[in-house]
């Protein structure tokens, strides 16, 4: 699988709509995208794989829009995020989109997930997304802002608010590195 450069595979898909090359791209990125979709759609894990699948289908259809400026996987993260927002709007879950209220999720039956995952469920989608992209996938706050089309200040504020909520839920400290949250709105 690794004998092909990613750019080579993308070019093949772009020029010939080559499904074999796209299959290799899916194999290469399916794990991170599915992990991300699970985190986004928690606790509704049933839709996570559908969301991941739709993300790759959209990527295949709109590959000509990938400008090659950033990483391909970042573009996939972006598609997955907007797909999930579209899904939330379609099922009218505006409560998970708004920032004005604490998300009231019933996590009592989630006995198989870790405490962190249970706590994550209680965050808003944007808070969860920003935190996941920063801490699990190593993106900087500037990169996250670009990826999600959000102002940097908003990203900082989502991360700070999310971390505060998590610290409160998990009863752990979150204030030992104030530098990280200095610019938060």
């Amino acid at each position, binding site marked *: 699988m690794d004998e092909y450069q990613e750019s080579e595979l993308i070019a093949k898909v772009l020029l010939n709509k080559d499904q074999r090359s796209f299959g290799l791209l899916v194999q290469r990125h399916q794990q991170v995208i599915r992990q991300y979709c699970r985190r986004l759609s928690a606790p509704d894990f049933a839709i996570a794989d559908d969301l991941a699948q739709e993300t790759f289908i959209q990527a295949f259809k709109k590959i000509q829009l990938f400008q090659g400026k950033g990483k391909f996987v970042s573009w996939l993260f972006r598609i997955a995020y907007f797909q999930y927002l579209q899904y939330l709007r379609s099922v009218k879950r505006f409560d998970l989109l708004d920032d004005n209220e604490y998300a009231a999720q019933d996590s009592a039956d989630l006995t198989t997930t870790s405490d962190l995952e249970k706590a994550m469920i209680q965050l808003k989608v944007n808070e969860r997304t920003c935190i996941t992209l920063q801490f699990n996938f190593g993106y900087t706050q500037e990169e996250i802002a670009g990826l999600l089309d959000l102002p940097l200040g908003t990203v900082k504020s989502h991360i700070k608010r999310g971390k505060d909520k*998590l610290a409160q839920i998990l009863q752990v400290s*979150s204030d030992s590195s104030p530098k990280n949250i200095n610019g938060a709105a």
Partner: protein
Amino acid sequence: MNELERLLSTPLSDIRDDGFSLKVLKSIRKKQRQVFVLMSCMLAGIATVFVVFIAKISSIGLSLLTALPSSFKLLGSNKFDFTAIAHDALVAMQTPAGLFALTCLLIVSCLIKFDL
């Protein structure tokens, strides 16, 4: 890095491919087939409507052509009814024009629905 950040940086659990990439490719092929079938149906629909439209127009034209010589004769006698002919022509055009408009509407809505 504080306690919370250490916790947040815990790697997410591994997810095996378990046929996921094959499933994605299958759905892509399925969608492509759907688009192909849809486009074929649309083209067939357009062709049918077009044929009906042309046939109607030509039959109206023919009937007008056959009616005109005798109509000219009638003109002098003030028995020629222009409004009747115009009405007939409009009635005959209604169905194909309606079908044509509906097909156009269908095509546009399908294009929007399937994001083509």
